[in-house]
């Protein structure tokens, strides 16, 4: 990965789609406003111009139908990418995702493959409110048969999108709205990032922070601040929560003995509990203090900025949690 350019996260994701669609004519892309418009977030910019209506098609407001189509097309030899745009809008499609896409490979005894990518953007981009901010990725992780990707950087979004498209099973690919126009270094050459390999974003020895998506950025910022206080933080981004890179996390915890899990989703019955449970059972004796978890407050997303800020995990909050963790 010698050469790099500094491009937007969203541009990197489009590059991945473009390169893969050129490589494989069985890939098509459907969603609302992703054609000539190029996507609400510019997440499909240029695809329609290059590949036309047949492979890049605007959809009616039919999330269930779109994903159902994706399932059928995937079973019939195509490789569909279905863009839901706002993750919140995926609700009506859950049946097609869970009962059909996730299940058919198993139930057909391996005879059918469902190479489907369901793409959506999650999280709050400042006051998007209760219907445009949710982060319920743990739902998908709870369902056998689905892989769940949460790319946190421009490099990752491109490399992981390629792997998602090449995967022979259904992949839930969840970007963060907040990132789309953020720039980051992206290798020039062809590359793909494997699923299930965590990224140690920052090495440290006192505390491990496990974070996904936007929370990785918060954790990195917190880590820098904490360094000034002499607290050395290791930040781990699993990148995919299914498959989940348990080893990378356990290794880190064996070293630091302290773990903070930061999750933009509400905490109860989500991913943070699972990660904590895994670590407490598998690194029981390495833990010098109880694992701490941070998540959004257990409320819907309020529209008001003050309330929203109070509801979401913040850099200040992470710094405070780490201090407590080190003190304990």
């Amino acid at each position, binding site marked *: 990965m010698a050469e790099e350019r500094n491009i937007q996260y969203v541009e990197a994701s489009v590059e991945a789609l473009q390169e893969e669609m050129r490589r494989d004519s069985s890939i098509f892309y459907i969603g*609302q*406003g992703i*054609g*000539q*418009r190029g996507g*609400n977030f510019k997440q499909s910019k240029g695809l329609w111009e290059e590949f036309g209506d047949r492979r890049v098609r*605007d*959809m*009616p*407001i*039919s999330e*269930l*139908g779109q994903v159902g189509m994706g399932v059928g097309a995937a079973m019939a030899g195509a490789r569909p990418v279905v863009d839901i745009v706002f993750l*919140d*809008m995926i*609700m*009506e499609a859950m049946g097609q995702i869970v009962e059909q896409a996730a299940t058919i490979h198993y139930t057909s005894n391996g005879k059918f493959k469902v190479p489907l990518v369901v793409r959506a953007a999650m999280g709050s981009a*400042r*006051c*998007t*409110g*209760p*219907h*445009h901010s949710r982060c319920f990725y743990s739902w998908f992780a709870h369902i056998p048969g689905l892989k769940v990707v949460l790319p946190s950087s421009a490099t990752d979004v491109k490399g992981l999108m390629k792997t998602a498209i090449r995967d022979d099973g259904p992949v839930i690919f969840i970007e963060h709205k907040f990132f789309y126009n953020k720039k980051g270094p992206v290798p020039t050459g062809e590359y793909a990032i494997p699923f299930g390999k965590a990224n140690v974003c920052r090495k440290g020895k006192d505390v491990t922070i496990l974070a996904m998506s936007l929370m990785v950025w918060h954790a990195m910022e917190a880590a820098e601040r904490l360094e000034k206080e002499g607290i050395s933080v290791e930040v781990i981004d699993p990148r995919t929560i299914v498959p989940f890179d348990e080893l990378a996390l356990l290794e880190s915890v064996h070293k630091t003995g302290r773990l903070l899990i930061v999750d933009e989703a509400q905490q109860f019955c989500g991913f943070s509990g699972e990660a904590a449970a895994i670590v407490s059972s598998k690194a029981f004796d390495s833990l010098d203090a109880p694992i701490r978890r941070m998540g959004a*407050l*257990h*409320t*819907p997303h*309020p*529209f*008001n*900025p*003050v*309330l929203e*800020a*109070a*509801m979401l995990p913040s850099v200040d909050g992470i710094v405070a949690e780490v201090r407590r963790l080190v003190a304990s």
Partner: protein
Amino acid sequence: MNMSRELVLSLYRSMQRMRQFELRIQQTYRSGVMPGFIHLYVGEEAVAAGVCAHLSREDYVTSTHRGHGHALAKGVPINEAFAEIWGKPTGVNGGRGGSMHIYDPSCGFLGTNGIVAAGIPIATGAAMAASLRDDGHVAVSFFGDGAVNNCAFHEGINLAAALLLPVVFVCENNLYATETPFHRVTRNTDVASRAAAYGIPGISIDGNDVLEVHRVAGEAIARARAGEGPTLIECKTYRPLGHFEGDPGTGYRPKEEIAEWKLRDPIVRLAGAGIKAGVASEAELKDIEQQVEREIEEAYEFARVSPEADAATVSDFVYA
């Protein structure tokens, strides 16, 4: 057609309130002080005005992401509505909801909605509650052309028809869902014709003619109250502005189309018709316009001077 002086003046006032309210919202939003994103109803006011003129505070309305007009027409107080969209604690929902989540039980307003078509089965349910009580109240669901291809439209309307519930479905067909033309996403752009699939009457009208909307909605609502079941009304209208504040609204729509529709502005048309029919004078219309201006100015001030929300309330009302 009913064109009494009272009717013309009240519909004119109703539309002026929506229009001026939203232009003030737009101005405020553009000044950068308003959070979130907003979808303006400007140009489509005839639908909300004509339909809601038949509704009492005890009737129910479900709305959309483009719902400021529905909220005002149904009776949500203008000050609290302005403050809500601004995200102020003095808003009708304490600023927790904002533009796409305005709720007011005091006038049967079951919410604007961030989810397209979600309000349709909700209206059916409200009608079910009313019919259980036999209280003669009705529910009206407003939704766009984009909702017509959505699953909730199908199940919500079929259920209302099967149970013969007192609900009226009002489609605001402005030809586009975001930037996607309706004809690109369905082979049948005649929304009213879809009523037949559910065995209910469907009718397509000029949604920028408030008097026609008023007449047709009146009949449908009367049928509903009389226990004769739902009606689907397609109001052909247009969104002269962008899909949301920030979208220029051009590019995906021919300039001529936009220009042409601007000539059909429902407020201008009602004024013209009223004056032509001699039931209203320039002067009194101007007068109403100015009264509304003051009202809106007050609403703006009310919202502006409101304090910021108290973070300590963030966890209130999660569980009833």
